C-alpha cells in the first residue's frame, strides 16, 4: 500500500518534469547490426568456453605424456629394488601395468568424455 502511494506520488509530474522529459527524449536508435555483433561476440565466447577445457586437457596430455612414459618405463627398475617376497609372489606383474599406447588412448577417451559431458550439460 505504502509503495503504491509512493509510486503514485512519483508519477505526479509537474510541468517542469514534463519539459525535462521532452528535452531528454530522443528518437529510438536504429539497430544497424548492433545486436548481431553482440550476439556474434556472445557465440564466440560460448565456443571459447566450450573448447577451453578439452584444449587444456589436450595440451596437458601432450606435455605430460613424455614424463609419464618415462616413469612407466622406469617402473621395472624401481620395482626391482623392492624385495620380491614383500608382495608374496614370485614374479611381479610388470606386463599388467598400462603401456604407452594404452595411456594415450585413455587420455583421448577422457578428453572425449569431458567434451561430450559438457555438450550434454549445455
Amino acid at each position, binding site marked *: 500500500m505504502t509503495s503504491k502511494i509512493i509510486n503514485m506520488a512519483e508519477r505526479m509530474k509537474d510541468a*517542469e518534469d514534463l*519539459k525535462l522529459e*521532452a*528535452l*531528454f527524449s530522443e528518437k529510438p*536508435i536504429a539497430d544497424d547490426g548492433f545486436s*548481431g555483433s553482440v550476439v556474434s561476440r556472445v557465440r564466440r*565466447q560460448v565456443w571459447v568456453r566450450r573448447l577451453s577445457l578439452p584444449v587444456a586437457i589436450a595440451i596437458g596430455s601432450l606435455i605430460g605424456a613424455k614424463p609419464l612414459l618415462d616413469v612407466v618405463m622406469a617402473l621395472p627398475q624401481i620395482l626391482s629394488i623392492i624385495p620380491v617376497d614383500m608382495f608374496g609372489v614370485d614374479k611381479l606383474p610388470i606386463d599388467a601395468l598400462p603401456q604407452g599406447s594404452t595411456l594415450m588412448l585413455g587420455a583421448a577417451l577422457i578428453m572425449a568424455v569431458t567434451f561430450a559431458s559438457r555438450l550434454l550439460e549445455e
Partner: protein
Amino acid sequence: MAQQDANAFGELVRRHQSQVRGFLRKLTRDVTLADDLAQDAFLHAWNKLDTFTGRGSFIGWLLKVAYTTFLQSRRKSNRYGEVLDEMKQVADDHTVQESAEVSDLDKFLAVLTEEERAVMILSYACGLSHREIGETAKLPIGTVKSIIFRGKEKIRESFDIKDHQYG
C-alpha cells in the same frame, strides 16, 4: 542449448539496445565510446544473467550493468577524460556562443556532475522510478530525490530559467 540461449539473448538485445545505447550516449556524449561500452555491457549482462532475480524490471537491471560498465571503463580509459574535458568546454562556452552542433541537452548535461547526469538521464530519459534509479546507481532513494532536485536547480540557475521554461 547455448546456441538457443544466445538467440534468445539476441532478441533481448534487439529489444533493449536503443535504451541502453541512448543512456550511454547521453552519459558519455560520444557515440563510438557509448556503443563500445554498450557492447561490453551486453556481454557482461550475458555472463551475469543468472544474477537477474526477476524482482525488478529487466531494463532496470540492464541499465545497472551498463552504468557499472561505464564506471569501470572510466577508471581504466583516458578516452572518457577527453570526453569530459569536451563537456566542460561546452559548459564554459554556453553563455558566450551558441553553436548549432551543441544541443540544449548537451548544455544542460554539461553543468551537472557525473552522478547528477546519470540520475537525471535514468529518471527523465529512461523513465526509471526513484527506487529503480537507487538500485541502478547504488544510492538510497532519499539521495536520488535530492540529486534530482539539485540537478533541476542547477539547470535553472545555469541557464537563468524562470517558470520552468526550457528549450
